[in-house]
Structure formats: structure tokens, C-alpha cells
């Protein structure tokens, strides 16, 4: 009788107390996010708003801006004003650099996927102890200094670098092949920089792969190739999309790689933007270029969100 009388009330009391404690602390807890939000708000979000404003101003002669409304920055992106008759001439120089960067980023993403998928799959099918070592080996370059890694590429592809020296010594060539400061150098540097960014998200998705489905496919007389294309790859689609995005976005905005391996001759968007804030002394143009890059990134993110949320709904 006691238990019957006691348990519901004590239980509900305990539950009530618990809920109360959790609730009151919970309501106060949300204030804990404030320091982070304030710091990022002032020093992260506000600067982005400022470059939106700057992109509609006039460049000051020695860098910086003059507070005067103008859409010249966006016009200058596609056109150049003729100095003689003041007409607008279509000048696709910047557009070409954007398209080049886009191509570089697409090629980087595709090659990283072709190399990264088999690697991630191989890692995911190792015994657990071995798997950890593989993950650590891919994680180290992921977090290593990009400038130093790019420098390492530069050392081996220079005219007097290791590759040329080896080929010369072997007598394959009689004068060094120029690789540094070419499109090839930039492409190689981008691949080298972003390969780990592809492997890690692919791995985390392949690691969860249910191999009973693979087994079932084989039981139904699927070939190895069919299992790969019709079972494994469709099941790892979220990882593939995440990996492609993690490679594509930073590759599109790459700055260090073309700076060091392109030698200021072969520009990408990142260098072009930085140039406007340095020797170009045209901050509004640089801001407009940065915002156009941001728009491209948002389009990529939009496709990502739409693809992943669609995936969840269809199960």
C-alpha cells in the first residue's frame, strides 16, 4: 500500500524537480553562448557587412575607400571605361580568372575523389587497430601547415629540384623541364593540399557502411564492379558530397597555392582579391570580387543543403 501510494507522487516529484532543475539552469545556460557569439559577431560577421558596404564605394588613391556611393566596382568586374570616349568596354580579364579558378577547383575535386574514394574505402575495410593508424596518417597532413606543404612541392618541382635533377642524372632529359610557375604546378599543389580533405569525410561515411548489403548483393550474383557502383557508391553518397564540398570551396578560394606555385603569373581568385588590397589599391573592387566569390560558395552550399536534406526525406 505504501509503495503504491508513495511511488507515483515521489516519482512525479522527482521528475518535477529534475525538470525544474534542468529547466532553470537550461534557461540561463543559453546566455553562455554569448561571449562566442559576440566575438564572432563583431570581428567575423561585421567585417563581412563592411566589405558589402565598401564594394559600393569609391577607391581612395592610396588604398582604403572614399565615402561616396558608386557601382563602379561591380561594373569594373566585367567592363573597363575607355579613357578617350568614356564608353564601357567588355573586358573579360577578371571573368577569365574566375573561370580558370572554377576549372582548377573542379579538376581538383574530381581527381581528389578518384584517389580519395579508393583510399577511404581501403582504410574503412582494415581491421580496427590498423584503421586508427591510417586515420592518423591522413589526419596529420590535414592539419599540417599549408604554406610549408606547398613549399615542399615547390622544392621538388623547381628547375634545380629533385625531379629535374633525377631526370638529368638518368639522362632522360638534357635540360630541366619547367614545372614551377605553370598551371601544372598550381594543379599539383591544389591536389596535394586538399587530398586529405576528401579522404576524411569519405572515410567517416564508409566506416558506417553495412557490409551485409554488400554480401546480399554478391549472393544475388552481382559482380565486383556492380557491387561497387550500385551498392557501395550510392550508400556513401553523403560522404562523397561532403568531401567534394570540403575540397571544392577552399580550392576555389585558394590563395597560398597559386601565390607560391603560380609565381604571380598564373592568378586565381584568391590572389586577385589580395592584389586589390595590395599593389592594386582598389579596395572596393577587391570587396566586390570577394563577394562574387562568396556568392559562388553559397550556391555550392545551397546544393549541398538541398541534396542532403532531400536524402533524409527519402530515407
Amino acid at each position, binding site marked *: 500500500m505504501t509503495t503504491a501510494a508513495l511511488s507515483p507522487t515521489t516519482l512525479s516529484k522527482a521528475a518535477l524537480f*529534475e525538470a525544474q532543475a534542468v529547466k532553470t539552469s537550461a534557461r*540561463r545556460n*543559453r546566455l553562455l553562448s554569448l561571449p562566442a557569439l559576440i566575438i564572432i*559577431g563583431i570581428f567575423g560577421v561585421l*567585417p563581412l557587412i563592411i566589405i558589402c558596404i565598401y564594394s559600393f564605394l569609391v577607391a581612395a588613391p592610396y588604398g582604403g575607400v572614399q565615402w561616396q556611393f558608386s557601382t563602379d566596382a561591380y561594373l569594373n568586374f566585367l567592363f573597363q571605361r575607355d579613357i578617350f570616349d568614356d564608353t564601357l568596354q567588355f573586358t573579360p580579364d577578371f571573368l577569365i580568372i574566375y573561370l580558370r579558378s572554377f576549372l582548377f577547383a573542379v579538376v581538383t575535386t574530381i581527381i581528389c575523389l578518384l584517389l580519395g574514394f579508393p*583510399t577511404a574505402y581501403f582504410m574503412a575495410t582494415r581491421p580496427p587497430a590498423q584503421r586508427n593508424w591510417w586515420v592518423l*596518417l591522413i589526419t596529420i597532413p590535414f*592539419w599540417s601547415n599549408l604554406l610549408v606543404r606547398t613549399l615542399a612541392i615547390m622544392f621538388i618541382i623547381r628547375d634545380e629540384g629533385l625531379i629535374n635533377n633525377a631526370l638529368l642524372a638518368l639522362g632522360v632529359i638534357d635540360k630541366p623541364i619547367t614545372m614551377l610557375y605553370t598551371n601544372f604546378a598550381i594543379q599539383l599543389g591544389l591536389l596535394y593540399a586538399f587530398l586529405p580533405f576528401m579522404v576524411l569525410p569519405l572515410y567517416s561515411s564508409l566506416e558506417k557502411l553495412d557490409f551485409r548489403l*554488400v554480401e546480399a548483393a554478391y549472393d544475388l550474383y552481382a559482380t565486383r564492379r556492380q557491387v561497387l557502383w550500385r551498392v557501395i557508391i550510392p550508400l556513401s553518397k553523403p560522404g562523397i558530397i561532403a568531401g567534394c564540398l570540403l575540397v571544392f570551396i577552399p580550392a576555389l578560394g585558394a590563395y597560398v597555392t597559386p601565390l607560391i606555385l603560380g609565381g604571380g603569373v598564373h592568378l586565381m581568385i584568391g590572389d586577385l582579391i*589580395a592584389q586589390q588590397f595590395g599593389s592594386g589599391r582598389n579596395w572596393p573592387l577587391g570587396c566586390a570580387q570577394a563577394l562574387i566569390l562568396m556568392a559562388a560558395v553559397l550556391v555550392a552550399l545551397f546544393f549541398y543543403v538541398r541534396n542532403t536534406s532531400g536524402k533524409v526525406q527519402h530515407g
Partner: protein
Amino acid sequence: MAEPRIMDIKDQPGFRSIAVICLLVLYTPVLILMVFSLNSGSLVTHWEGVTLNWYGSAFLNEEFHNAAKNTLIISVTATIVSTICATLAAIGMTRVKPWRGLAAAFMVINLPLMVPEIITAVATLSFFALIAGTLGLNFGIGNLILAHTVFCIPFAYMPIRARLEDMDLTLEYAAADLYATPWNAFKRITLPLLVPGIMSGAALAFIVSFDDFTITQLVAGPGQTTLPLYIWNQIRRPMTPEINAISTILLLVSILFVTVSFLIARRRAK
């Protein structure tokens, strides 16, 4: 007979060789760079013998000292501030009833990860130029510390949040049942369990700040050279293996912190 068949179904032909090639591609250039830091010749490309002289000359170099000092001031401060902010934010966004704006707050925290670094760099430069021009405010090296703190927060936030989400909530409820005040429950239960996540987050924040080049290069004022900037300045002069020595030091710092963070995370997973 059944054993090899089970192993077999996971296999795809050629994948092993591609995986090995990937590792070779990722490590060979960096290892060559490291090996040449021990080259006794003064050229970065011709091997002449083993020496540690280049490390010696790097350590005696005053410019290197200043760069190392600046780097440590910036990355240690940014790590401490960002880890504290990230820990508080992670608690405020997981141990809480869903509040209006939670999704937006989550986006703000992760914003520095989504915006390409070059955009953050020019935006931060414009911001500091504006407040210097209109308000006369210039925090000196504080500018760099603030810029670094912003992009360190999401890196510190991720492992801390993951840890909070994995944590067994019943322990916190039990503490509340035993009349622990919320603060006591936090101090005696949640915080000790959260320490590995905080350490892992701090390690990541430290690496990204220590290694940052793009944002630092654009925001840094005169005399605010950090180690990556120092390397960049050296590349444009005739190079000696000293640059390899300094690069190697930077790589070893990254490797150390990644490995520590990885081991902490693995112990948690066990």
C-alpha cells in the same frame, strides 16, 4: 573456407595500391623537405652531408626569435580565449531547451569555417582599417589575436560539443536528484567529463592559429611577423636549408598537437 570468403567481399581490386600511392604522395615531398634541413651544404637541392647547423643558425637568428615570440603570444592567447568561449557556447547550445535562434547561433559559430579564408582576411583587414580610421583604435598585435580567436572558436567548439553530446546525461540528472546545485553538478560531474573534449579542442585551435598564413599576412602590421610570415619572407630571398629547418619545426609542432588530440579522442572512443 568461410573465413577468406568474408574478407574477400570487402575487397575491391586496385584500391590497396591507390591507398598506398596516396600516402606516398602526401608524405614524400614533406619528408624530402625535412631531410634537406639536415643538409650540410648551403643549397637546398644538393645533398652534401648531415649537420644540425641550420637549426643552430635558425635559433640564433633574431628575426626568427621575434617571429616565434609573436606566434606564441598570438596563438596561446587566441587558444585560451577561443577555448573558453567555445566551451561556454557548447554548454549553452547543448544543455539547454531549444531556444529561438539556436539554429542561427549555430550558424554564426560555424561561419568562419564556411567563408573562404581570403574573404575573411580582406574583411578583417577592412574592419581594422575602418576602426583605425574612424575611431582611432588600433590594438597592435591584439588585432591579430582577435582575428585568430574568431576562426579558432569553431575548431575548438566541434570536439567539445561532440563530447557533450556523447556524455551520459543520467549522471547529471543523478547529481541534480542528490540536491547538487547546477553549478556544483557542472563543476563536479560535467566539467571533469568534458576535459578531454576541451583539451582536444584547444589543441586544434592552437594548430590553426599557429599555422595561419592568409589572414595573418593581410591583417599583420609592421613588426608583427609570425613564423609562417617569416618563412614567406625567406622564400623570396636566396634560400638556404635554414628555411627547411624552420619549416620542419613548424611541421613537428603540428604533428605533435594532432597526435595528442588524436590520442585523447581515441581514448574517449575506447
